[in-house]
């Protein structure tokens, strides 16, 4: 039987954003996005959990080297997102609303191609401790 183990690494970043769809009227934006539409934006301490899966390498006992995963998250996600205004500074959100859903998808697209040994299983993004989104890749 294959010993597939799932490994989850957490990371944190803080960022600001605003929810605004330019194709909607001011009134519609307010109705859809509520406080998140406040014009000067607002911020969150996001918590990211990235889960990878793979077989345990009998030589090392690892699914993958955690340090490499940490480096990928740092380089691909934290450097781009941490202490940034997502709408203004992260290219994915130039034409897309930086909802937690879209953030999770963007992180998946950044991280998945960089993993060599294990494969990405899930990206979980907590916007607040009470709200999180899971993305498992394209169905």
């Amino acid at each position, binding site marked *: 039987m294959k*010993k597939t*183990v799932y*490994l*989850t690494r957490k*990371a944190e970043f803080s960022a600001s954003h605003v929810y605004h769809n330019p194709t909607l009227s001011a009134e519609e934006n307010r109705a859809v996005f509520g406080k998140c539409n406040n014009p000067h934006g607002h911020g969150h301490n996001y918590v990211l959990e990235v889960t990878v899966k793979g077989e345990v390498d009998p*030589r090392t006992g690892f699914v993958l080297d955690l340090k490499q995963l940490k480096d990928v998250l740092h380089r691909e996600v934290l450097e781009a997102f941490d202490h940034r205004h997502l709408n203004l500074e992260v290219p994915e959100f130039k034409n897309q609303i930086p909802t937690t859903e879209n953030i999770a998808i963007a992180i998946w697209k950044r991280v998945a191609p960089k993993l060599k040994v294990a494969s990405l299983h899930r990206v979980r993004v907590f916007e607040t401790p009470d709200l999180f989104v899971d993305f498992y890749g394209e169905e």
Partner: protein
Amino acid sequence: MKAYLTRRYRFSAAHRLHNESMSERENRATYGKCNNPYGHGHNYALEVTVSGQVDGRTGMVCNLEDLDGVVEREVLERFDHSNLNCLPEFAREIPTTENLCVQIYDLLRQNFVLAQVENVRLEETMMNSFEYGGGDVRH
């Protein structure tokens, strides 16, 4: 009616990640600080998920005391305040948290028969966790 029940436990143990068949340099490159010669320790948090039909008479999947008893005897007594490298379980395996997670799953599958052991999740630190549910099937 099938339900899933998860119970959380804690134990503390020391380990050192070191593969005798690798050179000193390779060990250092693979395991980094975890290869420090005298070992180090963690406070592990263990989550055991079991499933089963809800008993019409008791309203329970299984009696938590029974689960606690088996986890105490098979896992906590074996691993708590131990040096994992010195245990027979790790005589031929590196005590990574991947391997520890698989061992705990196997021990509970063999010894807890009052409900189906579905998944074992092991937190090594607040930032890392590992999961094993047997083979390639995720429940």
